[in-house]
């Protein structure tokens, strides 16, 4: 079976490095799946889950990625994001806390929609929801 290497890098180091048969992610203009031996490509991602189909085990790994850029070259798919967390590493309580906090400040700031802080709060809500969603797909 064809395979490729998937590497996810964040400022805290290499988050994920495994062989895989498929990677699914969400680019800014829609979902994308990368298969092995893909032609070289660079594309930015949105705040969303990245799903990786592993080669050695019959399972999918979920990784929460906050934006970043995906690059495929020499059959290596690397994702460089300013933060990324594997499903098993996510602190679910903190994610809920962040969600709550973001919702609160959005409520407080609603009405002034163009507000930069409102935008910021909605981004952090988005991130928290993404992390909660990803952590539900933890492998046991």
């Amino acid at each position, binding site marked *: 079976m064809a395979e490729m290497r998937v590497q996810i890098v964040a400022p805290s180091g290499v988050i994920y490095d495994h062989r895989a048969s498929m990677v699914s992610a969400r680019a800014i203009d829609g979902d994308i799946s990368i298969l092995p031996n893909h032609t*070289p490509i660079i594309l930015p991602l949105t705040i969303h889950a990245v799903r990786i189909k592993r080669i050695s085990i019959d399972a999918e790994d979920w990784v929460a990625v906050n934006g970043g850029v995906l690059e495929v070259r020499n059959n290596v798919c690397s994702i460089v994001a300013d933060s990324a967390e594997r499903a098993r590493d996510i602190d679910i309580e903190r994610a809920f806390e962040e969600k709550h906090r973001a919702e609160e400040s959005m409520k407080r700031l609603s009405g002034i929609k163009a507000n930069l802080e409102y935008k910021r709060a909605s981004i952090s809500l988005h991130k928290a929801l993404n992390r909660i969603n990803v952590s539900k797909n933890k492998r046991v």
Partner: protein
Amino acid sequence: MAESLQDIQKRIQSTRKTSNITKAMQMVSAAKLGKQEQLNKGFQVYSAKVREMVVHLAQTQLALLEDSDMIGTNSPSNIDFHDMLIERPVKKTGYIIISSDTGLAGAYNSSVIKTTIDMIQRDHQSPDEYIFMAIGRTAADFFKNRGMNIAYELDNLSDQPAFDEVRGIARQIVEMYKNEVFDEVYLCYNHHINTITFQYRAEKVLPLTDLDISEAEKLDFDTDYIYEPSKEEILDILLPQYAESLLYGAILDAKTAEHAARMTAMQGATDNAKQIIDDLSIKYNRARQAAITEEITEIIGGSEGLK
């Protein structure tokens, strides 16, 4: 006898207590330094990756910039250079000074502040030409006390700063640069060389001029890349991320130097305390011996008198 036995003993005790504290602080800093070095290692991978992508994507723009430099004419206007890459006439310079929040780190803070001030006095005539941004309370307080205005201030970074803590200031700086609050930005910090040495560094972060076209040629990318949606739009996302990673890298570096400096300073303090205790012990023993001798002489003298 200049000092009584008790006085000397008290001094020995208090010095010993101080040395226990400095010793503990030294060990704490050593642990933090170890952790920080680990963090740096992880970050190296990330920054190398981001840089590689930026160099790759900006390759064509860089090549054109280089050509226009050589000819000495203005760059062709039909190409939309990214505003973070292009140099504009400098009216105002921004200086980001990275210092620590707390003291007891030897010459760490004073060296970064002093060297920066020297550099600014050398390069600028009037205070209108520069503006400060301070990371760490020591630098912020220093400039505030001297009535210099600070455009941005970031305090209370944790010992192992997370990327999220730094993103705010990085965004702000990129934003201010785009709004032409300043036309170039320097990062001033202490670079960690090893545990006992650090070196002052002033690096230009914006505009991003340290990208080199030869680097891209060395990497030798395939030509048939797909860019989704387009090179320019990816650069729009990637360049701020690159600037953020430069700043974060500098802060990590400075933090490492800070922990190392504090460790060395505390080691020095512990050594000095030990020296003082040794000296005082000798003094104490001498004084005790003198007291005993005196007593014996008195006893002998007394018994002589009884004969």
